[in-house]
């Protein structure tokens, strides 16, 4: 059983890095020691009217300082509450949660779309192979770009065409005539669906990180299931839990 911890983390620093996007470093007791690329943590709200923890992907892991880097978007009142936290403030968290990305030593695409970009950074740092990083943004309000440039060749797609390829991440792959033996991706469902098809057509191994509304975050409530090809181990139907068997799945294994 994977180790999970509920802790009071301490905010090391927080800054806004793009419209509605925040970069938060927290000091943890044990979570950072056990965390892997592609895992997430649950963050609990202080306001008692908001009961459910918010699942936030891990952007970077600093095991030496037992710290985690989280980059998140304000999506509602809970994440807005987190964005008010300042250095020294406490944050109730649980993790590390989920399975994380498998590290393959093959020529890789690391693909992030929007707020799916952050978890690709720790993966990029962990992977020891040829890396092509393809990032999809809405417009020129980009974030984490300098950090990714240190990890490999970066290609950019923007919906409005203001930077890089006009269009989506697949348009950037085609425009730059890129190829890979393994794909890692996190982003909106239409992007993941397109990548799943692209991977199937080109016979490329493809790992995608999924998202679904969660309550418990640890596999008990069965809120965050996704349709799977194989029968799941919990219920013996075709519902894998994003929080437990995921969030990272082999693309061919899940219906999108």
């Amino acid at each position, binding site marked *: 059983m994977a180790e999970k911890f509920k802790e009071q983390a301490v905010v090391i620093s927080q800054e806004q890095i793009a419209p509605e996007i925040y970069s938060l470093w927290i000091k943890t007791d044990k979570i950072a020691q056990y965390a892997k690329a592609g895992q997430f943590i649950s963050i609990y709200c202080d306001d*008692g009217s908001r009961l459910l923890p918010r699942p936030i992907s891990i952007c970077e892991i600093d095991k030496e300082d037992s710290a985690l880097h989280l980059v998140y978007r304000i999506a509602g009142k809970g994440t807005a509450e987190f964005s008010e936290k300042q250095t020294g403030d406490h944050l109730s968290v649980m993790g590390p949660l989920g399975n994380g990305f498998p590290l393959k030593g093959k020529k890789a695409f690391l693909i992030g779309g929007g707020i799916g970009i952050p978890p690709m950074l720790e993966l990029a740092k962990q992977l020891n192979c040829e890396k092509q990083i393809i990032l999809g943004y809405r417009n020129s309000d980009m974030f984490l770009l300098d950090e990714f440039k240190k990890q490999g060749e970066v290609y950019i797609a923007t919906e409005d065409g203001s930077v890089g390829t006009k269009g989506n991440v697949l348009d950037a792959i085609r425009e730059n005539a890129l190829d890979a033996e393994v794909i890692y991706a996190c982003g909106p469902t239409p992007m993941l669906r397109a990548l799943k098809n692209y991977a199937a057509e080109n016979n490329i191994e493809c790992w995608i990180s999924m998202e679904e509304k969660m309550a*418990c975050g640890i596999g008990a409530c069965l809120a965050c299931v996704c349709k799977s090809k194989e029968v799941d181990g919990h219920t013996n139907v075709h519902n894998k839990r994003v929080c437990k068997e995921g969030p990272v799945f082999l693309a061919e294994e899940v219906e999108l």
Partner: protein
Amino acid sequence: MNTKVTIAGVTFDNPVMVASGTFGSGEEFSEFVDLNRLGAVVTKGVANIPWPGNPTPRIAEVYGGMLNAIGLQNPGIDVFVSRDIPFLKKYDTKIIVNVCGKSTEDYCEVVERLADQPVDMLEINISCPNVKEGGIAFGQDPKAVEAITREVKKHAKQPVIMKLSPNVTDITVMAKAAEAGGADALSLINTLTGMKIDVNKRTFAIANKTGGLSGPAVHPIAVRMVYQVANAVKLPIIGMGGIQNTEDALELILAGATAVSVGTANFANPMVTMEIVDGIEQYMQMHGVADINELIGAVK
């Protein structure tokens, strides 16, 4: 100090249980909770065959609560008996199995399969608002409540708890019907049917359109209904609905519940049940209560 309570001949070390559907069969939470310290684990509903549940999104947070429409996804009785019961037997706690079905025959089949199993009580879910057949359809008609209670009792070896829905005009009518059918105990309340609309997407927040409202928002309704039912029937009551802390649990006991189940609060704080077990003992010490049973229904 005595924290033991007895329901239908089954004695629990303390009155703190977990509400069905919020705790699985305990395995996931066992990393955070010492299951030995719970009065009982009430399992996620189990049917005669695996149920896939509803499409996603299955939940939505609302102010002071949440809506869920999981749809009773469960692995069915075969897997439950071979995997979940052996897991729970490793712990020194009581096992209450929540039973769901689409027809009376389904419920009875599960109850019969559990007859020779080491489980302590059965909780019959006739109040789930999120499934089309069975569930709440049985729980909103007193004749149906009485009939299914009587049928289940014919097949059950363990004491039977009927779990009541708050989505009725007068819950005491359903409580009396369950009593007339031979129920050994009652549990209440299940969730209240609600709805949330996402104004940006102009769609329902959960795929099932409606979902069951739980959490602190429903707690005063639970207190009122436990009080009403306690004064209407002689059966012991397991009270639940929005318990967040010791005070909420004590309210339901003082209103007439012999035991309490903690549900949605497990999501907000996975260790909350342990805090409530400790909190009740502290309350008893502070207020000179020698026996928890003195508190049951003490507010008239």
